[in-house]
């Protein structure tokens, strides 16, 4: 079977090369952003407002704006997502409504963000007169994150073995007591990672805050829910496409790097949560 062994060797080499390509794409992007971005990152850059005319200044209002947006979006999406997930995994009997709900969750997860942005602009900002503001962008972003929270939370709850529920019910626990004490408490870490995934998606989203959140170059922090809000991705977009001087590109790199670092923070913390609780689920 010499032929087979030779084939095996060739395939192995090809697979090694291809995997290195796909992995290197991440490192190349990260290093490129890190090298260019770290030049401009300084305390002053992180704590001052941008000056869009001369493409200088810092990104403080944008960082805070992004955090406001993500906070508002999570406050809406997390409860709704978890409630839906609990209903679907614990209470739902397979009737028409649950089938429709599942179908809509799949479609909601797939909706392109430009469609949500357009809807946010036309319905929330114009029709409901909420205006281009933190509120409309926050609500529109929550549409983006709800399906992710639902899917991950439901998966986490379904992973809790059926025997635990039966044991609790056999002790005379009500369905809600079983869900709360057994299912939710055991699946909590994974639900937490689901919410973090949603936060990551909302943080990295550009189209929705661009369309219904504000100009992205706000030099102030929104003082009420209905004031426009600058956000880090939109800032990076405008500085990247419209700034032609080197200081603009530097700030766009700075913005991208801060965004990636926020991302690493979220992904790493969700990995830590998942590993730390891995043992607890061992049955």
């Amino acid at each position: 079977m010499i032929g087979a062994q030779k084939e095996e060797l060739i395939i192995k080499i090809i697979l090694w090369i291809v995997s290195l390509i796909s992995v290197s794409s991440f490192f190349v992007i990260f290093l490129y952003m890190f090298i260019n971005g770290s030049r401009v990152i300084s305390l002053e850059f992180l704590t001052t407002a941008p000056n869009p005319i001369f493409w200088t200044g810092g990104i403080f209002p944008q960082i805070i704006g992004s955090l406001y947006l993500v906070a508002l979006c999570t406050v809406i999406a997390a409860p709704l997502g978890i409630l839906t997930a609990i209903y679907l995994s614990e209470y739902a009997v397979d009737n028409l409504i649950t089938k429709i709900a599942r179908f809509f969750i799949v479609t909601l997860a797939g909706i392109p963000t430009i469609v949500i942005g357009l809807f946010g602009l036309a319905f929330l900002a114009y029709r409901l007169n909420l205006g281009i503001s933190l509120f409309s962008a926050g609500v529109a972003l929550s549409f983006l994150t709800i399906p992710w929270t639902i899917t991950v939370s439901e998966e986490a709850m379904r992973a809790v073995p059926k025997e635990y529920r039966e044991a609790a019910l056999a002790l005379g626990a009500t369905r809600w007591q079983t869900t709360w004490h057994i299912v939710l408490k055991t699946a909590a870490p994974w639900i937490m990672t689901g919410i973090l995934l949603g936060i990551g998606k909302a943080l990295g989203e550009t189209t929705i805050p661009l369309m219904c959140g504000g100009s992205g170059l706000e030099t102030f922090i929104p003082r009420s829910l209905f004031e426009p809000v600058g956000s880090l991705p939109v800032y990076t977009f405008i500085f990247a496409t419209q700034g032609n001087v080197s200081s603009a590109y530097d700030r766009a790199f700075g913005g991208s790097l801060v965004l990636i670092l926020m991302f690493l923070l979220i992904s790493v913390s969700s990995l830590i949560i998942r590993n730390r609780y891995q043992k607890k689920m061992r049955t």
Partner: protein
Amino acid sequence: MSWSSLQKTFFALILLAILVLGVHNTWTMSNLTSTVYTMQSTIDNLNSMLGNYTQRLEGYLTIAGSTTVLPIIQTCANLFMQENPGVVISVSGGGSGHGISAVSAGYINIGMSSKNLTTEQITDPDPDLQPVAIALDSVAIIVHPTNGFVDDLTLEEVEMIFNGTITDWSHFGGSGEIHVYTREAGSGTLECFEKFFMKHSDITGAASEKTSNGEMKATIASDPAGIGFLSVGYIDETVNPLKIDGVEPTVANIKTGAYKIKRWLFLITKGPPTKIEQAFIDFVLSSQGQEIVEQQGYLPLEWFQ
């Protein structure tokens, strides 16, 4: 027996109705919040009242529209905010069309436009939009600084490049395909460019669309084979403005009329401006405002009074 699913859905529908009503009322709620907001900031201002005798202004303004007018208004807004700490102004671009449609839709306070409302391009201008001219501007043809093939173009040459008749730099002794860039359909700069240059034909479909002066400048500054048009206020060393029929698009030539291309820049409000809007417009028209106009490379009003 537990609730039959019919009862459950019926009950859910009532809840749904309440939800929709609730959502509908949010716009009243949003007015409520803005009043609450203004009340809250007036309380803040009360304690700093003694230090500042002038009638304190507070509230927030959203201004959006033409990227040509944007630099002027952004600088004015920063200065205005320093002088009136109670006021917060959010300035964003989006082009003249965006400014006009947004202010007539009523979700921004002031629209910026570099095209006047009576042109044929706007199908049915909102009757109660009130434009106020604040400065003048012109449009220049720009190429990459290293593009040595062209320095002076006639009107016809410009039209033939932009309508796709001339597609290669070899026509001017260079080489390589000409990369034509244009602006989004709603742009005031595009309208002015078409009025003066594209008298007989339309810009070629192959031209790449850029959505703002800034993006146009950044693209030409990074594409050696590119050619486009730009508001004079934006010109700097990263792009090379071309002479048209021998006349260089400098502020002096525009002032004397040698460089024939000229257009007015407007701030537009829906109906009579409110106290804050009027205060800001007056500030832009004041000597301090007009100085900023000149500083940004535009043409102050009094030069053409």
